[in-house]
């Protein structure tokens, strides 16, 4: 919340440096729209259609369109807090430059309009996806959008700073009428006009600003009814896979290699399945990992030539991925409904440790490790072979850091804390600290190897040896044991 207030205040401060109220409000309202889009991607889509309550809603004598409209309102209400936390401070600070009426009244109202426009657009896209892909596949498309959408938004901003924004500005300079196609500019024009600024095509701007939320929302409702109805009636599940079905493949092979029979393999199996299929986990964990890769790529590729050493960039990317493990562990504490945990309650403390160690291995090998591996292979291919040794070393040190975290952190038995209701519940300062320490630790360990291009050759076997030792000793991982034996779950 403080971060959002800070962003709002910073946006407001821009009002004193930008002469044109139109330019300032367009920028600030674009930021508000981006925030709204981000929140919608992460949390709104899950609220728009929740298969778990289809059984309750389907028999009600209410039209699907009405239910969708109600959900849209609920999602819109959920946007008010984050958007308000940005828009209100921005307005307060801007009021020092533009006056209290503009800052405290006009800007928040226009921010709400911006938010509604994004909501309408989002709902329209969602409805189109429902219609095009069908209810079952739409859920997968939405999850994929959540995983990659955050990264795309961040990437768009970060890479855009290096060229996209100036290209857009140049295009508008050549063809000024293009500005009417930018929704934040429509609202910004209204704000500018209120402050007496001369704005071209004001009437068109105002009409578009007023029409966008209404038209987009109406379009979404018109598009969604039939498909949403099908989804509510239980058509949101893809047909099951038939056939032999006993788990095989590399995961089963790996699970048998790195775990002894019994609870360890059970934990590995559960972690491997949940980390691929639990929607809440997938969108939060992989979304974060994708975002880290995008941010790191923007740092590496977005900088001017020679600004950042490719070796440093590779290391940065890999440590950013590795430092996500505390966050992933927090996410993985959540699992299915508590009643489903009944089989786990037959474990004693020793069995629980084996389960936990197996689940940890499954989680690490199923989430952070593939990203580390992928980055370690891709980065040298993109940045030159001279970074290859650093990439392998950083991947090894990253793995060591992950395992150190796993051994040192005290966390609940994985997948035992009930369902994750909201992404935001697991965020906190602890994650920020763990991330910062992970980054700092990785760089400190890597630093000596920047002295000579071949120096990582020494570090790689050392890191692998340490990682092997840590993997073997994971059976002793510390747990919160309080209340386990009885009704602790």
């Amino acid at each position: 919340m403080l971060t959002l207030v800070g962003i709002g205040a910073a946006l407001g401060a821009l009002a004193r440096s930008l002469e044109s109220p139109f330019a300032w409000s367009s920028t600030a309202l674009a930021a508000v729209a981006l925030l709204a889009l981000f929140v919608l991607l992460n949390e709104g889509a899950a609220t728009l259609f929740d298969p778990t309550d289809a059984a309750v809603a389907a028999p009600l004598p209410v039209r699907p369109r009405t239910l969708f409209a109600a959900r849209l309102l609920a999602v819109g209400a959920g946007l008010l807090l984050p958007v308000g936390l940005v828009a209100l401070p921005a307005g307060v600070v801007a009021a020092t430059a533009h006056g209290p009426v503009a800052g405290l009244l006009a800007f928040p109202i226009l921010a709400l309009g911006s938010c509604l426009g994004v909501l309408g657009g989002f709902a329209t896209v969602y409805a189109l996806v429902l219609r095009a892909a069908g209810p079952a596949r739409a859920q997968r498309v939405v999850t994929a959008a959540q995983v990659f959408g955050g990264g795309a938004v961040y990437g768009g901003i970060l890479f855009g700073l290096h060229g996209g924004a100036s290209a857009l500005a140049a295009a508008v300079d050549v063809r000024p009428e293009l500005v009417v196609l930018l929704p934040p500019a429509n609202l910004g024009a209204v704000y500018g006009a209120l402050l007496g600024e001369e704005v071209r095509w004001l009437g068109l701007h105002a009409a578009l600003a007023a029409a966008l939320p209404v038209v987009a929302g109406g379009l979404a409702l018109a598009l969604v009814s039939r498909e949403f109805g099908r989804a509510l009636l239980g058509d949101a599940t893809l047909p099951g896979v038939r056939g032999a079905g006993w788990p095989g493949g590399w995961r089963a092979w790996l699970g048998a290699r790195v775990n002894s029979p019994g609870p360890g393999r059970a934990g590995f199996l559960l972690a491997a399945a949940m980390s691929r299929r639990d929607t809440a986990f997938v969108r939060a964990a992989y979304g974060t990992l994708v975002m880290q890769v995008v941010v790191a790529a923007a740092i590496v590729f977005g900088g001017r030539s020679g600004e950042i050493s490719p070796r440093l960039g590779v290391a940065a990317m890999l440590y950013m991925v590795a430092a996500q493990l505390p966050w992933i562990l927090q996410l993985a504490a959540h699992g299915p409904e508590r009643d489903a945990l009944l089989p786990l309650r037959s474990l004693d403390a020793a069995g629980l440790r084996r389960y936990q160690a197996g689940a940890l291995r499954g989680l690490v090998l199923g989430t952070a490790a593939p990203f580390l591996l992928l980055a370690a292979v891709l980065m040298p291919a993109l940045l030159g072979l001279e970074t290859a040794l650093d990439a392998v070393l950083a991947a090894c040190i990253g793995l060591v850091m992950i395992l150190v975290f796993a051994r040192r952190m005290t966390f609940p038995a994985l997948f035992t804390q009930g369902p994750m209701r909201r992404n935001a519940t697991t965020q906190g300062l602890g994650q920020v600290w763990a991330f910062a320490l992970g980054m700092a630790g990785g760089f400190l360990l890597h630093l000596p190897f920047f002295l000579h291009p071949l120096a990582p050759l020494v570090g790689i076997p050392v890191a692998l040896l340490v990682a092997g030792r840590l993997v073997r000793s994971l059976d002793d991982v510390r747990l919160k044991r309080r209340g386990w034996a009885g009704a602790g779950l």
Partner: protein
Amino acid sequence: MDGAGIEVRGLRKRYAGGPWVLDGIDLSVAPGTIQGFIGPNGAGKSTTVKILCGLIPDFEGEVRVAGCDPRVDPVEVKRHIGLVPENAALFDALTVAEFLLFVGRLKEVDDDVIRRRGQTFLEVFELADRLGARIGELSKGMRQKVLLTSALLHDPRILFLDEPLSGLDVNASILIKDLVRRLADEGRAVFYCSHVMDVVERVCDRIAIVDDGKVAAEGTFDEIQARRGGGSLERIFADLTSEGDVAPRVDRLIEALDS
């Protein structure tokens, strides 16, 4: 106390200073016996099952399940029992095969045994082609069959079945009833909770009717019938546990709809 079945003496339980949910339950289930355990809603059936399965540690009285005290060693109790709870939640994200492997491995059953037993059970239950299907996609009856399979994977000595026929079709119900009979005949103790009186009457060797946390009647069906002067189990159950005649209450409901 016998080491292989269930022994309960003076079992009492209440939650957070409230009224006694269980108020002196005495019960003995020998190996090879199917013990019916029936009672109205809120009579204490689920609490009794949870205590016997080692899921509720704080209670009064003496309880032995497979020779173990669930208060002292709940994990050991859980090793010897198979539990099919009513309204069980499952791991919807797992496939049927993964779920069976998960449960079996937690109970230290060898993977080959899990596959062999699981395959056989699912073939008999006509679910073999659903091995690779997610549990979340299964119907209620299919989930119940998977649950029964998982409860039997480790070949438990004592079975706790809470409405095991819930959601099953007629053919599957007949199959499960025969299976339960055979399991008992082979020496396992079965604790059978249900609201379906005619099934309890036909399947169970002994029946305990609980009401307000006390055992209102216990014995074979013939013994209970003789003590109550004849009638079906449903009639005896209603006599023991109902708050008076049903007809006036139905009249009230109909009047409410008409008003």
